[in-house]
């Protein structure tokens, strides 16, 4: 029992930076989903590109300015994807919008592979790399930075949504586009704001995660999958749920491997999380769905 607790504890501490990154990613996914009802499958690409931008800029302008510029580039990327792909596909269908983000994903990943190559590169170190010993485990300073930044960002996010006019407008427009437009809110602008925010968070998370795990054009974008699980666990349209979901995902990754022979199997945490997510979906699901003839294409 003590062994289990000790292993689990260490694993959880090791998983902390992942929780931070997943929370940042999941927040972005949720904000974007709420604003434009699109599953942003390009999120992983939007997170990885800024990490490469930071990597390229850091030797020239220093790590901190590079990181700031890169995070901004993430936000800009988000806005561009919304403006030129997602918005233009709104008239076609929701499926087309989601597939559009798939196209952006594929294009960006291929682009990064061409420009920076497909070998693992070290990410930019935002904070000096120092190791601390906790029990038998080594913990690095940048891991803590990731958690701290994620917590700060999440706090700022909730403050923005609850306390500012922009936050109110974004919530309104997400709930009912037409009603919001009648109230004098420009839904296109709040949607852009959501994608900007989602892009900034993705960029931040991507840069920090790259600092901890390294940079790879195929591997890093796929770190988005657990974030999607986190977002779904939280209900897909709840920001608080997304953070909670990230916590659950991180804890599962930490705890499950300490659960005997089953837990030590490769992918056991993923299996447990999948079953958990499916269970939640089963419980939350609604009844039969209606159609809307006037909406036309679907």
């Amino acid at each position, binding site marked *: 029992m003590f062994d289990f607790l000790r292993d689990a504890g260490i694993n959880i501490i090791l998983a902390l930076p992942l929780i931070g990154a997943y929370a940042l990613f999941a927040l972005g996914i949720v904000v974007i989903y709420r604003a434009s009802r699109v599953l942003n499958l390009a999120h992983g690409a939007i997170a990885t590109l800024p990490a490469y931008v930071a990597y390229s800029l850091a030797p020239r302008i220093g790590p901190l300015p590079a990181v700031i510029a890169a995070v901004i580039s993430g936000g800009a990327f988000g806005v561009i994807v919304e403006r030129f792909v997602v918005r233009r596909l709104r008239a076609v269908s929701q499926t087309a919008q989601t597939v559009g983000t798939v196209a952006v994903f594929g294009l*960006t990943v291929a682009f990064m592979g061409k420009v920076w190559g497909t070998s693992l590169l070290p990410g930019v170190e935002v904070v000096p790399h120092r190791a601390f010993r906790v029990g038998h485990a080594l913990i690095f300073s940048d891991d803590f930075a990731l958690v701290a930044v994620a917590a700060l960002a999440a706090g700022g996010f909730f403050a923005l949504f609850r306390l500012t006019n922009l936050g109110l407008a974004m919530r309104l427009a997400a709930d009912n586009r037409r009603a919001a437009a009648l109230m004098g809110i420009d839904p296109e602008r709040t949607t852009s704001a959501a994608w900007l925010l989602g892009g900034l968070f993705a960029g931040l998370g991507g840069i920090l995660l790259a600092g901890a795990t390294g940079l790879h054009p195929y591997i890093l974008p796929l770190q988005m999958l657990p974030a999607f699980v986190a977002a779904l666990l939280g209900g897909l349209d709840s920001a608080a749920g997304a953070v909670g979901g990230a916590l659950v995902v991180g804890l599962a990754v930490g705890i499950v491997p300490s659960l005997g022979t089953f837990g030590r199997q490769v992918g056991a945490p993923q299996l447990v999380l999948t079953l958990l997510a499916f269970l939640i979906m089963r419980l939350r699901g609604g009844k039969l769905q209606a159609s809307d003839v006037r909406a036309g294409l679907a």
Partner: protein
Amino acid sequence: MNQALRRPSPVLGIATRFAAITPRTRRSLLVFIALGLAVAWPWILPIPLPIVGDAIRASEYGLVAVSLVLLTGWVGQISLAQASFVGVGAFMTALIFRKFGVGFPYSLPLAVASSAGLAVLLGLVALRVRGLYLAVATLIFAWMADQFLFSATWFVGLGGSASLPTNVIGRDGGFPSFDLHDPRIFYVVALSGLALGIYCASNLRDSKTGRAFFAVRGSEIAAASLGMDVTRYKLLAFGISGAVAGLAGHLQIVGDGSAVPDEFNFLRSLFFLSIAVVGGLNSLPGVVVAGALFAGLDEVFFRVPALNGFIDLVSGVLLLGVLLVYPSGIAGIGATARRHGASVARLFLRWKGRPGDGQGEAPQRSLTAVHGDDAGALAVQTSLLDIAESPAIVRPADRMERAEVLTAEHITVRFGGLVAVDDVSLTVREGEIVGLIGPNGAGKTTLFNAISGLNDPTSGKVHIFGQDATGMSVHERARLGVGRTFQLIQLFPQLNVFDNLLAATHLSNSTGFLQHIVVTERSLAAERACREHVMEIIDRLKLGDVAHRTVSGLPFGVLRTVELARALVTGAPFVMLDEPASGLDNAETEKLAELLLTLRADLGVTLLLIEHDVAMVTGVTDYMYVVNRGRLLAEGTPQEIQRNEAVIAAYLGQPSVVEVTA
């Protein structure tokens, strides 16, 4: 010399003869020739073997794309896990070989079945979620398959890759025995797989099952109200799609001799989705062409050194370009080309002095949402329905002698603390038109939904045609003989009017899913009978002009009529109408009232209508129920209701309304 003059050249002779045969035979002939060429070209043309390998790859891509057309295109369930199903098919093939020493083709059924089974499992989990939630569910499934299933050595094999050492059909060296190491032989195998997949899928599309798929995609509530078991059809779609994807995986590992998990990861699922979208998600020929296109691109970008490594970039650009510029994909480009081709052919024929032949080939297909307009079915001229014995007009005195069609006893519906319907009982008898009126928020629709099964009453019982229907699902009630319309119109937006109505023949068509896949005489006969029945209703309701228009874009009044027609096509002797006059102007409302009376007289249907429009209800009904604040306020003949003080006070308000309608 003379003879040569008299006899036309052989080429011209064949051409004339070809022009003389019927379009149907011509099509089969063309398919036959195309298939023959597709099989034979590797032996005829001096082609390097890698090209044959590409053709094999193209067949496999085509199969996966077909599986996506089924699930995503037709049923509307976005799948981001298609590569996982392919992978299960591949690794199961290897697993079966490792455990039992059984190879191709004997391992095929089990490999395909396990893919289908896993897909059904995912479908079961995802049953109650839809749209993007479902997309996330499939994404999570793909993630799990990638991280857990395809990382497990018991499933994939030691060393993280699966291999299949023998590629011989039959006993090695014996007869019959085909050495699959010859890619040309295996190409024929893969092509047959693709042909089988397309054949089954296209049969399915034009059948009752295919219509149920489209209906589920369009509106689940309406599909259920036509007697379709939405759950069953979703699971069926997952199962078939999984099976087809599994077949692709099986062929892939047999052809390649080995497989690694990376060939079936999430990125691969996105790649397959790209193929399907570039092809045009609804179109079987489109996605098959797209599969060949991507396989060809693979090869070109691999062969030409300058292009090495640019394939992902190019497929990304291709997908984005297709989406933004041509959302209907290759299928859409093909349709445009055919239109232009047809007009060019007409011009050519006119120039040759043979007008009209361009119209000769009427499409046989029905699901016109997929193929654009379809004039063929309109040509089916049918006689008017024999006018049924018109039942005697209901008099209140003999009301109690008629058989009960619907009895709702003490229905109460609570939503948390709110009592929406409080102990309401009502009875509808055979041949009656019964009205249920009440002000906004009175609980009419809640009561209606409790009767039709959309939400369960907290207490109370519903009997339909004498059977206890309490707790039955919507589609089970439909089977008892209840049709309905909806306040917010629930037609299937992707289908045209004819197909919307054809979908309503679901219950009267008793053929099963397997008959739809292989197309039996019985299923064809049933299909013909259904079409004739739909044409009768179309004539009766004078919908002939719009029969081949897609429903989105039709005027509101027409949509209401189409929905009514759909309820009638089901043949249900009892039809419930939810605010049929809402959104109609006075003239249209009057016409509707007339129509309802005619329908009752001609077809003998029993009607229950919920209405806002008091004038209309008092004009057509034999008996009325008035609800207010969830309670039954009054019941009686329209005359009695008009005189009822409580009703006037609570609902009608101004006596003038009553006078107008009296």
